[in-house]
């Protein structure tokens, strides 16, 4: 499973989203995820993949998150 697919799966599980409605270019705001939701997503992702990601100003979209994980 790719990082993107893992993220889509986690969002589908925790936020009851349809994975088909999620695109890599979507910002967290567009997905109606606030800062606490993003923190939760990042920690769930760490639990799933074992990759710690720092939350900073450069983290705005699903694609940004995928890049941070894949570049580790």
């Amino acid at each position, binding site marked *: 499973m790719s990082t993107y697919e893992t993220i889509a799966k986690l969002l589908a599980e925790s936020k009851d989203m349809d994975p088909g409605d999620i695109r890599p270019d979507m910002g967290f705001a567009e997905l109606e995820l606030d800062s606490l939701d993003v923190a*939760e997503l990042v*920690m769930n992702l760490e639990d799933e993949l074992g990759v710690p990601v720092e939350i*900073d100003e450069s983290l705005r979209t699903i694609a940004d998150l995928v890049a941070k994980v894949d570049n580790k």
Partner: protein
Amino acid sequence: MGLAYPIFQGGMAWVSDAELAAAVSNAGGLGIISAMNLSAEYLRGQIRKCRTLTEKPFGVNIMLMSPFVKDVARVCAEEKPAVVTTGAGLPNAYMKGWLSAGVRVIPVVPSTAMARLVERAGAYAVIAEGGESGGHIGDLSTLTLVPQVKDAVDIPVLAAGGIADGRGVAAAMMLGAAGVQCGTVFLCATECAVHENYKQKVLNAKDIDTIVTGKRLGHAVRSIRNPFTRQYAKMEYEISTTGEELEAMGIGALRKAAVDGNLEEGCFLAGQCSAMVHEIRPAKEIIETMFKEAETLLKGASAWVK
């Protein structure tokens, strides 16, 4: 941490200055200076003043949405208060600087994921703050947040939100907290320089007198109901009001309350426990009374499960 009592005084903007922090530290708790929205040099002056008033450890609270956050973060690394607490965001970008200066970092967190993120970055402890609190708040209540944060991290957890007497302290300990942070009760400390009208608002508040505004902007804030909050709440629910108009309305409102005592236009940030604060007392008396009561309650607590 060398405290006689495991209690922090919350870092309240326009309220928590060097004199209040020193009074709390001298009383055996951890006094905390608020860096609020002011410059780094204001903070440096307050830290140095506090050092002349107490030899005990004290802390600084950094509001991460402050326009001066980078500068005040640097001043904390230079001046090295015993503790930095943070609020309204994730402090991880500044934590390396504080940790390498030997400053203990204890962020205020509103969720388990935030607690885990700051633990990973080296936090010494976390303050799990429930939505009963005054000022910027999260959705979860203290009763539900504290045990969940306790389960999520291996560092000590302090409980905040709704704690104003020994019953609250005892309950927090039972939830797994190693200590508490209180704001509202110290608003009414003798040593607190906030405007007398502010103290009277807290003393006169009844159980249902606080209100949460600002949810629409994503920055929920609890304060005591007054003409300002009525007007704000009304505008918040009017579709024609823009986010910018709401933001503009909030600017300076806390200062008007804390410094000017403006009962009409001020925003009197305070927690739900305002109604449990009945008198103005020295910080030492506030703390000693709370912990004496908590000790008595905890000694008799097993009676309920026999």
